[in-house]
C-alpha cells in the first residue's frame, strides 16, 4: 500500500502544471468568449503529446497509463474545463475506441492523425436517445464492401473541427442496443452534414453540434470490433470517459477553491479579510474535504483501470461525485466572491457555468446512480430496469 506518487508521476505532474499555467490559463477566458475550441492551444497540446496521451507509442501516442492521464486532465481542468473535456472526449472516447476495436490497418491510419492534433468525436447520442441507448435509430447497412450510414447524432462534441468521427449505428435494429456497431469515419467522407454550433450555458469552448449522416459510405474495414458488438465498445468508452470527467471535476473544483481562497484573503469587509469569518472558513473547509475524498476515488479508479480490473462501478461513482463536488465548490466559491462572482470579469462565474455540464455529460447523475445501484443488486439476483 503506497499512496505517494512515484517520482515519474511527480515529474509528469510538474510538466502538466507548467503547461496548464503557462498555456491554458491565459487562454481560458478568451476561449469562453469566442465560443470556439482553442485551436492554437490544442496544437501546442498535441506537440506535447497530450492529444495522444494514452495512445500506444507505436501509433504516435505518448503511451501514458490512465493514472498519468488523469493527472494531466486534472491540471488542464484547473484552468479551463472546455479544454480538459475537449481533450478528454477526443482521447478517451474517440482515440481509445479505435485502440480498443480497430484493425491494425485502421489503427495505423487514424491514431497517428489523432495524436498529431486532428480532433476526434464520438457520435452516439441522438435527439430521441440521450440516456436510453435502446432508442438509437441511426442505421448502418452493409452494401458490398462498405456500410451506408443514415441518421442524426445530437450533442456531438468536437464536431465542427473534427478530422475523425467514431460513429455508433444499428446494424441489427431488432436487437436494439445489442445490434449496434461502431465505425471510424473520415470527416471528409461525403454524406456528413454539420448542424449549427449549439450555444450552451458553459463549456463554450467545446464544439457541440448535431451531425447528420445521409447515405454516408464507410469502407467495411472501418468497422471497429465485430459487427453487432458495438455496445461493449461503448460501455468501455463510457468507463474511460467517466474516469476522465471525474478528473476534470477534480481539477475544476481545485481551480475554484484556489480562486475562493485568494479572494477571501484579499477582500476586506468589517475591517478584516473575509477569510476571518467562520461562514467563509466553513465553505472553504467543506470544499477541501470533498475535494480530497474525490481525489482518492479518482486515483483509485485510475489505478484499477491500469491494473486491468473491472472499474465500471468506480468510474460511475467517481464521475457522479466529481460532478457534484465541482458544482458545490464552484457554487460556494462564487458565493465567497459576492457580487464579483456574478461578474464576467471574474473566472469563478465561468467555472460555475462550465461545471454544470458535468452533471449531464457522459451520463447524467441519474444514470450514474442507476449504474451504482444496479451493481449492488446484481449479486442479489435482481436485474434492475432503468
Amino acid at each position, binding site marked *: 500500500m503506497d499512496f505517494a506518487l512515484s517520482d515519474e508521476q511527480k515529474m509528469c505532474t510538474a510538466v502538466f502544471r507548467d503547461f496548464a499555467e503557462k498555456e491554458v490559463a491565459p487562454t481560458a477566458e478568451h476561449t469562453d468568449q469566442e465560443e470556439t475550441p482553442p485551436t492554437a492551444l490544442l496544437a501546442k497540446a498535441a506537440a506535447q503529446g497530450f492529444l495522444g496521451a494514452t495512445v500506444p507509442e507505436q501509433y504516435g501516442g505518448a503511451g501514458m497509463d490512465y493514472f498519468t492521464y488523469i493527472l494531466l486532465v486534472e491540471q488542464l481542468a484547473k484552468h479551463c474545463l472546455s479544454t480538459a473535456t475537449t481533450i478528454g472526449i477526443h482521447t478517451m472516447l474517440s482515440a481509445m475506441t479505435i485502440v480498443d476495436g480497430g484493425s491494425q490497418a485502421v489503427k495505423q491510419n487514424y491514431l497517428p492523425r489523432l495524436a498529431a492534433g486532428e480532433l476526434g468525436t464520438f457520435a452516439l*447520442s441522438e435527439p430521441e436517445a*440521450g440516456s436510453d441507448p*435502446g432508442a438509437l435509430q441511426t442505421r448502418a447497412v452493409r452494401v458490398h464492401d462498405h456500410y451506408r450510414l443514415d441518421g442524426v447524432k445530437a450533442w456531438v462534441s468536437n464536431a465542427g473541427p473534427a478530422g475523425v468521427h467514431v460513429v455508433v449505428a444499428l446494424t441489427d435494429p431488432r436487437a436494439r442496443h445489442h445490434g449496434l456497431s461502431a465505425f471510424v469515419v473520415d470527416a471528409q467522407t461525403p454524406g456528413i452534414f454539420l448542424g449549427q454550433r449549439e450555444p*450552451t450555458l458553459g463549456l463554450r469552448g467545446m464544439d457541440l453540434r448535431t451531425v447528420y449522416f445521409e447515405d454516408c459510405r464507410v469502407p467495411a474495414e472501418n468497422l471497429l470490433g465485430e459487427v453487432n458488438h458495438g455496445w461493449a465498445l461503448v460501455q468501455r468508452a463510457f468507463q474511460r470517459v467517466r474516469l476522465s470527467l471525474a478528473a476534470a471535476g477534480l481539477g475544476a473544483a481545485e481551480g475554484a477553491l484556489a480562486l475562493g481562497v485568494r479572494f477571501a484573503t484579499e477582500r476586506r469587509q468589517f475591517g478584516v479579510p473575509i477569510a476571518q469569518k467562520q*461562514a467563509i472558513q466553513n465553505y472553504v473547509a467543506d470544499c477541501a474535504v470533498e475535494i480530497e475524498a474525490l481525489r482518492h476515488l479518482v486515483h483509485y479508479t485510475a489505478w484499477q483501470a491500469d491494473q486491468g480490473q473491472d472499474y465500471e462501478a468506480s468510474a460511475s461513482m467517481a464521475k457522479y461525485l466529481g460532478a457534484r463536488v465541482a458544482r458545490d465548490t464552484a457554487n460556494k466559491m462564487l458565493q465567497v466572491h459576492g457580487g464579483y462572482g456574478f461578474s464576467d470579469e471574474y473566472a469563478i462565474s465561468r467555472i460555475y457555468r462550465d461545471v454544470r455540464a458535468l452533471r449531464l*455529460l457522459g451520463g447524467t447523475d*441519474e444514470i450514474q446512480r442507476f449504474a451504482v445501484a444496479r451493481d449492488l443488486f446484481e449479486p442479489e439476483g435482481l436485474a434492475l430496469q432503468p
Partner: protein
Amino acid sequence: MLREFCEQELKPRAKEVDRTGRQVPALLRWMGELGFFGIPFDQKYGGAGAGEVGYCILMQELNRACPSTATIIGAHIGIAAMSLYLDGSEALKQKYLPDLCAGRTIGAFGLTEPNAGSDAAGIQLRATLEADAYCLNGQKLWITNGPIADVVMVLAVTDPSLGARGGATCFVVEANTPGFAAGQPERKMGLHGSPTSLLNFDAVRVPKANVLGEVGLGFVTFMKTLDIGRVSLGAATLGGAEEALEASLRWVKARSQFGRAIAHMQSVQFMLADMATEIEALRALVYRTAWLVDNGQPFVKEAGMCKLLGSETASRCIDRALQIHGALGISREFALERGWRDARIAEIFEGTNEIQRIVIAGELLHERGVRIRP
C-alpha cells in the same frame, strides 16, 4: 390582467432582452401607464394602495416571465421609490413619486461601494454642506438601473466622525445633475437585460431640499428599505421557482426514454415533489410576511428568511429543472438556461445570504438579550 400582460408582452421578449442586454424603454413606460409601478403606494402619489401583498404578487408574476425586467422594477419601485415613500418629506414625495409611479422616470438605489459590500456601513462617498447645497464626491458600485435611472437615492457620509451610524444621509439625486455620471453596464453571468453600473460623483451639487429623511439618519432609511425589499425579492424568487416547475411538468410528459415518459421515473418524480414542497413553503412564508408588513407588525426576521429561503429555493428548483431537461437544459435556445444564470444573483444581492443569516440570528438573539456583530 397582470398574468396576461406578463405572458403576452414580457415572456416572448425575454430571450431578446437577454441577448441584447436591454429592455425596451417603451415597454417600461407602458407598464407605468398600466399602473404596475404604483402598486404598493398610496393613491395620493399616483399609487394603487395595494400594499406589500399587492407588490409581492406583481414581483412574482414579473419574475416568472422575465427576471431582467423584474429586477429593473424591483430596484425602481421596491427600493428606490420605497425609500422615498418610507422616509421622504411630503414635498419630496409629491415632487418625485407620481413620475416614478407612472414610469415617466426610473429610479435607482445607490448603497454599495467598491469597499462597502456586505459591510454597508463602510461607505465612503462624501457629502459636504456648501451654503444651500450638498456637494457629493465618490463612487457607487453595482447599481441596478444605474445606466437608465433618472433619479438615484444615494447614501453619503455627512459626518465622518460618526460614520454610517448617525453620520450618513440619504439624498435624492437627479441624473442630469452636472458631475454625475453612470458607467458602462457591467458584463454579468445573468440578468443581462437589467443594466448594472458604477456611478461616479464628481462635485455633484444636491439642494438641501433633496435630503431624504433626516440628516444623519440615512443609514436607517436604507436598512429599513432593504428589509421591506427582501419580502418582494422572496416573492420574485417564488415566481422563478414556479416557472421552473411548470416547465419541468410540461417536459416530463413530452420526453420519453426507456420506452416511457420520464414522468414515470422516480428520480424525476422526487425532484418534482421536492420542488413543489419547497415552493409551497416559500409561498406561505412570503405572503405571511407581506401580511405582517401591511399590518404594521415586526417583520425584519421574516423578511430575511424570505430572501434566504426564496433565493436558495429558486436556485435549487431551476437547477433541478435543468437536470430534468438533460442536455437541452444547458442549451441557450431554451429559457431554462437563462433562468439558471439569472437566478444565482438572488443569493448575493440586496444582502448576501450570509448577511441574511446574520440578520435572522441577530433578531433571534436580540430577543434573548444578546447583541451580535457581523
